[in-house]
């Protein structure tokens, strides 16, 4: 009888060289702040989407880049958050005619615990597996949730999605909503930045590097994985909560594996080994999508070729290209005799 091949262990490159992430982050922060100076509303609209999907991809990378497992159904928690917000907003709209500011913030906040709870229940089963089985079970749960949302018409409106979400007056303005999103995403990234440098962040790295040794150092491997899974789910939910008010609608596709694939794309294009990598990936992917689709119907072909090029020629993502270029520059400047030590 044929035997399954051993599951390939996923050990992403370590999120090393945080100074590169810091530099890129310090460059990006004012850039995002100044986007509204560009002519027209479209750039602001695109930048909002970049931020929301960037946060979603960052939450995925908490599991992939740091813990070394692939959550292939990560959109489930993004979508859960989006639906939680959308359903509450819709309810308030029906009950009171319009969503007030309190109701709006409540609708958004509710997304975080809902997604976290979903991640807790599903994660309980998923963290028992690793490698390709982890990926497959998360995919299976994700698709299951997708089909539940898709077919539970009375509650979720199924394929039609939930339309006509109207945030309170202030947030209907594209610029205001953009700055609001920027603040929310920036705060979330700051929290994630702290986590990545915390002892817990290093616990995750230990799991990624060698789960067996981690257990023999005294780490409860499954519990740690579960905690991180819930954290990642909560951040994904936060990203999802921004989606409904931004698009004024949500649809089941937000939970599907395409959406999950998006997080994987962005992380790998930007560089899963870098803290800020997924955001860079989101800028490239979402930015290209927004502008390329204006000129050609063949968007899939375009992005397909780009992905192919990145996978073949920039294995660690675009940031690793930059990283290597900088390192070569530094070496040239410092001379060849220099001792090369990696940063801690």
């Amino acid at each position, binding site marked *: 009888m044929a035997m399954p091949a051993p599951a390939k262990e996923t*050990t992403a*490159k*370590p999120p090393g060289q945080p100074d590169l992430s810091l530099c890129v982050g310090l460059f990006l922060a004012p850039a995002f702040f100044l986007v509204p100076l560009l002519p027209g509303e479209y750039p602001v609209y695109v930048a909002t989407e970049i931020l929301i999907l960037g946060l979603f991809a960052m939450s995925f990378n908490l599991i992939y880049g740091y813990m070394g497992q692939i959550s292939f159904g990560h959109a489930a928690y993004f979508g859960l958050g989006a639906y939680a917000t959308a359903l509450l907003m819709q309810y308030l709209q029906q009950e009171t005619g319009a969503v007030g500011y309190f109701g709006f913030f409540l609708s958004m906040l509710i997304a975080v615990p809902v997604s976290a709870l979903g991640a807790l229940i599903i994660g309980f089963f998923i963290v028992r597996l690793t490698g390709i089985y982890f990926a497959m079970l998360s995919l299976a749960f994700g698709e299951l949730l997708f089909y539940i949302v898709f077919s539970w018409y009375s509650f979720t409106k199924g394929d039609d999605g939930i339309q006509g979400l109207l945030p309170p007056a202030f947030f209907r303005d594209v610029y205001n909503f953009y700055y609001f999103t920027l603040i929310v995403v920036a705060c979330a990234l700051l929290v994630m930045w*702290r*986590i990545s*440098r*915390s*002892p*817990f*962040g*290093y*616990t995750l*790295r*230990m799991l990624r*590097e*060698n789960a*067996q*040794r*981690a*257990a*023999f*150092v*005294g*780490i*409860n*491997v499954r519990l*740690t994985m579960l*905690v991180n899974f819930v954290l990642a789910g909560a951040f994904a939910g936060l990203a999802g909560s921004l989606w409904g008010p931004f698009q004024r609608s949500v649809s089941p596709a937000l939970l599907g594996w395409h959406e999950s694939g998006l997080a994987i794309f962005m992380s790998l294009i930007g560089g899963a080994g870098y803290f800020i990598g997924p955001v860079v990936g989101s800028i490239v992917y979402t930015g290209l999508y927004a502008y390329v689709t204006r000129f050609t119907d063949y968007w899939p072909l375009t992005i397909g070729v780009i992905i192919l090029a990145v996978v073949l020629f920039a294995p660690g993502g675009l940031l690793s290209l930059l990283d290597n270029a900088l390192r070569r520059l530094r070496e040239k400047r410092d001379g060849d005799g220099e001792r090369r*030590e*990696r*940063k*801690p």
Partner: protein
Amino acid sequence: MSGDLLRIEGLTKMFGGIQAAHNIDYTLSKGEIAAIIGPNGAGKSTVFGLITGAQKPDTGRIWFEGRDITGLPAHEIVNAGISRAFQVANIFPKLTVLENVRSSLQVRRGHVFSLFGDARRLCAEEAGELIDRCDLSDKRLLEAADLSQGDKKRLELAIALSSAPKLLLLDEPVAGMSRDEASQTMDLVTRLNEEMGLTILFTEHNMSIVFGHAKRVLLLHRGEAIIDGSPQEVRDSPVAQEIYFGEQVL
């Protein structure tokens, strides 16, 4: 006996019809340094696996400091005070030496779930001391994957020590080391035992290392405990000569 640190009774484990451990009784007192020897497949690694919770025994019980630890998950056994180093150095390859040790120390100090502390500051000093003690001072900023075999094993020793164990299990601590590295490492092990009073149980193929460092030796053969005595007793035992040394000569 209440003075026993570790007590094993009737430990039995089958692997697919093969008896990897059969009805083993064994005790270790505080402060001992002892070795388990035996030909390949005698069950040395199995006994280590059973003690540390990597596998669960079919029958038999294991007590540590009077507490029944049989079948506990690995991480709880570590937290109870038993650390382990593996035959093939088991480390965190893409972290630096310092990160390897510092993170392990943070686990011991209960920072596993600490989300907002600064990992670079916590336990950094102690990590430095441990690294110094394991002769890795000049390599602290290297990635563990880039270390030599011997350095990797010493790093694993440092990781095992960072759990502040009361009992240290070393599976062939000098395997793959040069003669110099081996004696350096065994000196370190002896110092840990003598100066810090750490109880140590190790396995080793190299008999001169076993008889040079262990105060007590347990001989296993096909999963059974044959003799448990002083190095001299084991060396002189006819049974041991036949099943162990005889086999090796042949």
